[in-house]
């Protein structure tokens, strides 16, 4: 007993400070080939991306200029965004998401990315997004990408494990009515998106995303470069955040439509 007391006395200061992984920063090993859990952007604003894709915001900087085909440029001009440096006055914008049309994919990864639950089954990965409570299916049953698919809001996605901690998703067949991001970047039905999810450690996930649409852009570009997510507790409740047409109309009537940029 005396020996136990001595041990306790000697270790008490350590226990009071830090002995366990949670406080030492030591990480539990990440499970292999497993992304399941609730993941939230480490920096909330990096998930919201109000001015367009996080790594290519529409901020007027030369390094963020995208290279459009003539067709792509015409599409871009037809998109009137209410956000970013080219924002137009309320009432003049035509963002489809502002009438509660689906954001679709890949905008789901480029605007309002919040806590996202990933569920895995033997044949698919399911992503449950907070914003508008939508989900996406990524097939992992070995199927090939569809050739010339009918477009869908969220397209068709197929995923493969590149190694034990890197999951790569290819998506095509997206609906060109959707915008790529909040700055109104366009895409065609030829869009192909590559997502790379890399599980850095037990509590950290990174997402990189490449846009390839030769009909609209003269070269592929990186929309996300290691956007970092942190694992939330398993009992974390995803908040409710819906685009409600009636709430939106009420907001516009009371506030949004009264805020023209013209000074009286």
């Amino acid at each position, binding site marked *: 007993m005396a020996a136990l007391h001595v041990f306790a006395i000697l270790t008490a200061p350590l226990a009071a400070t830090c002995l366990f992984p949670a406080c030492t920063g030591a990480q539990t090993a990440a499970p292999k080939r497993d992304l399941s859990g609730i993941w939230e952007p480490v920096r909330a604003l990096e998930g919201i991306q*109000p001015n367009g894709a996080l790594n290519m915001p529409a901020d007027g900087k030369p390094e963020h200029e995208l290279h459009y085909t003539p067709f792509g440029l015409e599409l871009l001009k037809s998109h009137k965004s209410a956000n*970013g440096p080219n924002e137009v*006055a309320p009432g003049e914008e035509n963002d489809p998401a*502002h009438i509660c049309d689906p954001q679709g994919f890949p905008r789901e990864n480029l605007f309002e990315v919040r806590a996202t639950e990933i569920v895995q089954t033997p044949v698919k990965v399911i992503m449950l997004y907070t914003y508008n409570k939508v989900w996406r299916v990524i097939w992992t049953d070995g199927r090939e990408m569809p050739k010339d698919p009918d477009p869908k809001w969220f397209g068709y996605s197929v995923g493969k494990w590149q190694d034990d901690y890197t999951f790569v998703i290819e998506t095509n067949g997206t609906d060109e009515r959707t915008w790529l991001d909040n700055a109104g970047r366009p895409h065609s039905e030829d869009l192909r998106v590559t997502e790379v999810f890399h599980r850095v450690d037990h509590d950290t996930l990174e997402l990189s995303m490449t846009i390839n649409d030769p009909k609209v852009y003269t070269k592929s570009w990186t929309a996300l470069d290691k956007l970092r997510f942190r694992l939330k507790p398993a009992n974390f409740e995803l908040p409710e955040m*819906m685009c409600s047409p009636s709430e939106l109309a009420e907001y516009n009537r*009371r*506030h949004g439509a009264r805020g*023209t940029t013209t000074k*009286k």
Partner: protein
Amino acid sequence: MSAKFRVMSIVLGLGILAVPATLFAHHGSAIYDETKGVTVHGVVTEWLWANPHCLLEFDVKDDQGKSVHWTAEVSNPPDMIARGWSRKMFKPGDEVTIIMIVAKNGEPIGRIARVTVNGKTYEGFGRVPGEGTK
């Protein structure tokens, strides 16, 4: 802000420190004069806990004692929950002190940077102009 809506305002500061553009999720900030904060004391008439942005409706008496009705926004419910706000935090008749930025066009609309209600102060959506990053 036009003379009509001068209300009981205090210009808090000038530098453009209000809010990084990246804070805004759905709507642009070009409608606002972000160079100064305006402080008002008012009485709540309605609190809308809704998307895309929550709205507080309240009446403020101007310099001539005339009541002016204001509508001011914050962010969406999940963002405001994270700041300690709730669906039941205001009720009609509550007296509030609000620091907000207001529309350039003179309409009595704004965005709440800070509010005090029932003796408790809450940070709103965006920084108070003139105050640095916390």
